[in-house]
């Protein structure tokens, strides 16, 4: 027998694949989830004795299919829809994996359909493709578990009743719909950046999956590279007291070199392809940062050029704000402050933090202190608040 089979690891790795195959087989997400959960329950009972089968995913999918067929037969007398499904899918109709498109790709597009509310898209993606359970998702997004559970139930009912299709969109719709999928993955990543780090891990996993399934979409590669390069800095982002450490002050020896190497490799692949998009350019900016052995050695000229390119593609106030940081390094804080003051982002704490830093460098400590206080007031995470409070105190120290 040897070591205990790690069913939990198989579950995390294969849940999404199994559900996606079963959705195609059964035509219903709820039935597919039940069947896959049945199969894992069986695995928990039998694998400790038999050991993990050679193809765990294949075993789970076959078992789930058999369970679903049994269940449909049992229930066919009282549910016409199920009876029909049982007739349609005879047990010998094996749920093979699609040769061209992985079923998980269909499932991602269904979960991220624009007819669903954004919160529902995020929850469904984490539940069905990530295999996270309801309480894990609820905790990560700080919503009560019954609320989250109901959101999932409603979303699945809408998919079924409104006929949201289970397929990869046709080419004409693909750029738009793919943009929606990437936005959901990046939203999950950003939630994890300031909150539960497990969400970042999950977003990176989804990013890898998408990059594997759509290797020819440069923005998919770009998003994965962006997330890897940001994630690489996680060990350096907070000090021992849980206070945020901003990029210039980070101990670069703590950065995860293997994630950086992987991210930079992907950025180079994007550059060779030369079909730039916002995620790819943001990844390139982060690649420049991760190239610099010290903060002082950062190639800010290159970063500013990339921000100019990003501004042309995505002229948003947040991009303009981040560009101003590069302008401060290349052309001085006064120029940057003019740019920041032209932006209308009153409730965005990062704007106030950047403004505070520029005012400090311009030797206007009283105004800087006010901005640090405002930023701390609006900041979402304790680590950021602690950092901003410390900046303000340092300032007081200097003025007295």
């Amino acid at each position, binding site marked *: 027998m040897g070591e205990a089979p790690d069913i939990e690891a198989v579950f995390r790795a294969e849940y999404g694949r199994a559900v996606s195959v079963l959705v195609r087989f059964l035509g219903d997400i709820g039935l597919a989830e039940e069947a896959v959960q049945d199969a894992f329950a069986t695995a928990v009972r039998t694998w400790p004795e038999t050991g993990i089968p050679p193809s765990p995913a294949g075993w789970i999918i076959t078992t789930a299919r058999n369970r679903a067929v049994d269940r449909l037969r049992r229930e066919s007398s009282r549910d016409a829809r199920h009876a029909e499904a049982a007739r349609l899918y005879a047990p010998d109709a094996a749920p093979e994996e699609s040769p061209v498109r992985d079923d998980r790709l269909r499932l991602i597009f269904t979960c991220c*359909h624009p*007819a669903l509310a954004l919160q529902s898209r995020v929850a469904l993606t984490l539940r069905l493709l990530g295999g996270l359970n309801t309480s894990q998702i609820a905790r990560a997004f700080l919503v009560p578990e019954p609320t989250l559970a109901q959101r999932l139930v409603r979303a699945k009912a809408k998919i079924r*009743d*409104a*006929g*949201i299709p289970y397929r990869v969109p046709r080419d004409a*719709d693909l750029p738009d719909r793919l943009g929606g999928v990437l936005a959901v993955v990046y939203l999950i990543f950003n939630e994890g950046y300031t909150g539960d780090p497990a969400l970042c891990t999950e977003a990176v996993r989804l990013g890898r999956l998408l990059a594997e399934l759509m290797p020819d979409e440069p923005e998919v590669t770009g998003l994965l590279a962006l997330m890897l390069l940001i994630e690489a800095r996680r060990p350096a982002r907070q000090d021992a007291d849980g206070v945020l450490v901003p990029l210039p002050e980070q101990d670069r020896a703590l950065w995860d070199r293997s994630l950086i190497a992987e991210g930079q490799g992907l950025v180079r692949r994007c550059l060779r392809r030369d079909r730039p998009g916002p995620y790819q350019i943001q990844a390139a900016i982060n690649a420049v940062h991760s190239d610099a052995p010290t903060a002082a050695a950062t190639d800010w000229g290159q970063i500013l050029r990339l921000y100019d390119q990003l501004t042309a593609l995505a002229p948003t106030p947040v991009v303009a704000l981040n560009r101003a940081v590069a302008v401060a390094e290349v052309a001085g804080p006064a120029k940057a402050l003019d740019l920041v003051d032209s932006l209308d982002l009153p409730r965005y704490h990062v704007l106030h933090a950047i403004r505070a830093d520029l005012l400090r460098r311009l030797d206007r400590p009283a105004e800087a202190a006010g901005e640090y206080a405002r930023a701390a007031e609006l900041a979402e995470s304790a680590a950021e608040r602690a950092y901003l409070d410390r900046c303000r105190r340092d300032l007081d120290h200097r003025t007295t």
Partner: protein
Amino acid sequence: MKHYLLSVVQPTGGQPPAPDALAEIMRNVEAFNDELRAAGAWVFAGGLHGPETATVLRPQDGDVLITDGPYAEGKEYLGGLCLIRAADLDEALEWGRKAALATTLPIEVRPFVDRH
């Protein structure tokens, strides 16, 4: 095939479009209906008179009470409807998109309950 209802959402008390603009909208809506028919998706379509022309029938103690006016006053009312056949929501939403452009008004897409 599923059936979907495309509802035209009309703002209450809005200014009617100028005659020229209205004529163009009518032409576009007619072209939209023709396209639906050509695609085999058309089941029924029509515009409705305003809510002030509505009459409500309400069951009460085994009898039915007749009252003037719409069932509920709202900021919007159902200005017209279009019943279509479509394979799935994506197809229905594509028709809805065309309907929104033709009518220049918001369109609500809702699935009918499947009949067995």
